[in-house]
């Protein structure tokens, strides 16, 4: 049953040094505030999972909190490469992270299989692709009816999933609308989950087939308006493209990165997020 907590409490109660954790969001609804709280609490030695690690994973890596990353596309969408990730993989700063690399299809299947309680995902993947030569977690099974060789990878079952959603109702049911990504699967595949939301409402009043996570599937709910910034929350605020472009420059050198993190993450609290979206609020008249 979901507990309503402050983000500070939710992170310290649910995430431990050495855990396997995912912060999911597919361009939309990326849980930035949660990642910053983890950085402030300096919870390290993490194995971080995400289909599309972008700015927050660059930050976690640059701050030295990451032991290993499982992923399928490490880029700053629409901008370029991830400079802190590259510095770690190419030069070992601040530490050389271990990587387990997959394709999007594989990761999506692995979350889906995790949510479905299966030990592995079976799909048609990696045909002729070299990742299967470098990733020992890509194996095969034979279809017992056609003899076709199919691909198998272990399902993803993180210790903790962080997601950001539009709404929770008073009971703790969570509503996600728009681009859904793999968030529902990530929560259902994980042992524990923390959901930050834009708003807490009396009733969700949602479409019968809308994506709703019942309260008993979630560990903690935190009211964090703006908690996805510079990602966006459909119906609330737009993507802050300028911030993504700026990140490329901020992350380009180690000192610049550290200074920015001190000023914008370590020395501030979760409340800064609601100021950051002020100029991005969705306006129906626009």
């Amino acid at each position: 049953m979901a507990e309503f907590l402050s983000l500070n409490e939710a992170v310290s109660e649910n995430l431990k040094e050495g855990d396997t954790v995912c912060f999911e969001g597919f361009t939309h609804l990326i849980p930035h505030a949660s990642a910053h709280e983890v950085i402030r609490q300096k919870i390290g030695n993490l194995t971080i999972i995400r289909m599309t690690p972008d700015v927050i994973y660059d930050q976690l890596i640059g701050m030295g909190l990451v032991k290993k990353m499982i992923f399928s596309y490490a880029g700053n969408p629409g901008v370029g490469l991830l400079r802190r990730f590259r510095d770690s993989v190419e030069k070992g700063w601040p530490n050389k992270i271990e990587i387990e690399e997959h394709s999007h299809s594989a990761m999506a299947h692995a979350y889906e299989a995790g949510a479905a309680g299966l030990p592995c995902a079976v799909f048609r993947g990696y045909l002729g692709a070299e990742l299967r030569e470098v990733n020992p977690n890509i194996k095969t099974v034979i279809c017992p009816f056609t003899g076709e060789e199919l691909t198998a990878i272990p399902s993803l079952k993180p210790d903790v999933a962080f997601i950001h959603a539009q709404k929770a109702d008073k009971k703790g049911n969570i509503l996600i609308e728009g681009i859904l990504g793999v968030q529902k699967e990530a929560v259902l595949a994980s042992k524990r989950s923390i959901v930050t939301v834009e708003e807490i409402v009396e009733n969700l009043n949602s479409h019968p087939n809308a994506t709703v996570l019942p309260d008993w599937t979630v560990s903690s709910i935190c009211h964090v308006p703006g908690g996805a910034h510079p990602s966006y929350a459909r119906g609330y605020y737009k993507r802050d493209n300028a911030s993504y472009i700026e990140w490329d420059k901020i992350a380009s050198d180690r000192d610049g990165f550290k200074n920015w993190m001190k000023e914008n993450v370590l020395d501030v609290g979760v409340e800064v997020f609601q100021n950051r979206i002020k100029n991005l609020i969705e306006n129906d008249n626009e």
Partner: protein
Amino acid sequence: MNSDYSSDEMMTIAASRALTNKDVCFVGIGAPSAACNIARLTHAPDITLIYESGTIGTAPNILPLSIGDGELCETAISTVPVPEMFRYWLQGGRITIGFLGAAQLDKFGNINTTIIGDYKNPKTRLPGGGGAPEIASSAKQIYITMKQSLRGMVEEIDFFTSFGHGDGSDHRKSLNINTDGPSLLITDLAIWKPDPISKEFTVYSIHEGVTKQMVQDNCGWQIKFFENLEVTKSPTELELKTLRDLKERTQRANSRKEDN
């Protein structure tokens, strides 16, 4: 005829012409996205555009900066979870054209977007494959767009992120890959198609004003040309205006956001 256009514009417009109303395209960001939307706004209004964020049948009024922009969802027929996108729509064999870009490309349409150098100790760590490994095998055909360069079009790629025609000829079939694979390469200088037998990308049409030598000078392998080499028609006024209007709308929308 209009000669006042860039080679980038020519590339995007040439790619758009290859698309039809019946196509269901799995679209990547950048040149592919622009090409698909130009096709939609000109000769192929009924084309179906799918972005891997789960948005099916989108008709964005501006170009998305990422594959998960809000504009894609707002204009889509339906937005589905990402696992469904890869299971039912890509793996289900419903995509006619997968559009891919490349950091490195070889003559058989094999693509590297993973690393430069050695996988364990890369010189340059690139973003990785994303959707590409399965797009390359599940979409009926693959169209590739990239700007030509000696660094990009190479004799041997450093990593097989996604499989094109492998070593050529029937290599795909021998791996039980039953889709066509790369069937079109559109660069800023030319249009290429695979040789029917060897599957080597062979120049089919050179963009107006470009020479054979220029195409070779910007390609790291020894090029072959089809016998009846064609000349790519320059962009029409309509094509150029549609592309520029789209880019202008996109820029305006993005800058307005920052001005707020």
